[in-house]
């Protein structure tokens, strides 16, 4: 196989594999919102006070998915 084709092949496969990481972030974000919802249904009075914490947890979890997206984009457009 010629080097240019091998380069682009590895790049595309790598970008695809990097996107698998976003699945983990998806699970994490789902857990956070699901737990918040079940907690909010048990005690709706306390729900509003925890909304900021919900968003902080969401942001921290989502960042990990963004990292893998970034790796995929770097592989596609920079490498």
């Amino acid at each position, binding site marked *: 196989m010629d080097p240019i084709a091998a380069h682009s092949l590895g790049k595309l496969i790598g970008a695809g594999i990097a996107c698998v990481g976003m699945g983990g972030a998806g699970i994490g974000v789902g857990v956070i919102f699901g737990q918040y919802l079940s907690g909010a249904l048990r005690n709706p009075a306390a729900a509003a006070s925890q909304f900021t914490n919900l*968003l*902080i947890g969401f*942001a*921290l979890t*989502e*960042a990990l998915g*963004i*990292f893998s997206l*970034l790796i995929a*984009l770097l592989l596609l457009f920079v490498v």
Partner: protein
Amino acid sequence: MAEPAIEPIHQFRIYDLFNFGTFGGDGATGGIHIGFTNSALFMVLILAVVLGFLLLGSRRRAIVPGRMQLMTEMSYEFIANLVRSTAGTEGMKFLPFVFALFMFILVANLFGMFPYFFTVTSHLIVTAAMAVTVFLTVVIYGFYRNGLKFLKVFVPSGVPFALLILLVPIEIISFFTRPLSHSLRLFGNILGGHIVLKVFAGMVVALIATGAWAPLGVLPLAMTVALTPLELLVGVLQAFVFAVLTCVYLQDAIHPGH
């Protein structure tokens, strides 16, 4: 295959609107290129919109606020409550800083949703500059206020000594990767969202170009329409998240070791 003309990252290109030339260097390499780019133009526009919004809203200062004044007061109250609840009363001195960051990012993200508008926050250098400013503010103010006691930020309280050997390196790493994750979060969300929008928009063009399959172009078009409000939500949410995390980090500078 998509034509190069509808390549999804074309929208992030920075170019000079006019330039003052390159200073120093030997012409081909080195030197400082000074120019007024489209990115700078949109930053000035964002600043003008934020200033206009706040000045117009606070112009009349009526006891019973009108619509404009109400919006200004609501945005102020929103951030003031946020800072008070996350960083405490002592953190209120950072309210102008957090408010400025929030308004700039919010207006930048909303500006980006207009077609053909440049999205300032989709460039890592812009978000990194803001995140590093926050990081340096935390470090400098933390040492200024607490002296060497600021180092307690690396030592979680109420943890047995044996566990500290493991926890302190983790805390140090997590502290120093904060500007990285802080800037990448905003940048990645905006960049990713805009690329997805343009990919679906590109599918519409590609399907119409095929001729026979053109009616199927309705499907990606519907997707684009559905994604636009989602991106509006993401833009507002990320501006809020950036402000919240700034407050959380400032809280560390004010009360280390909690």
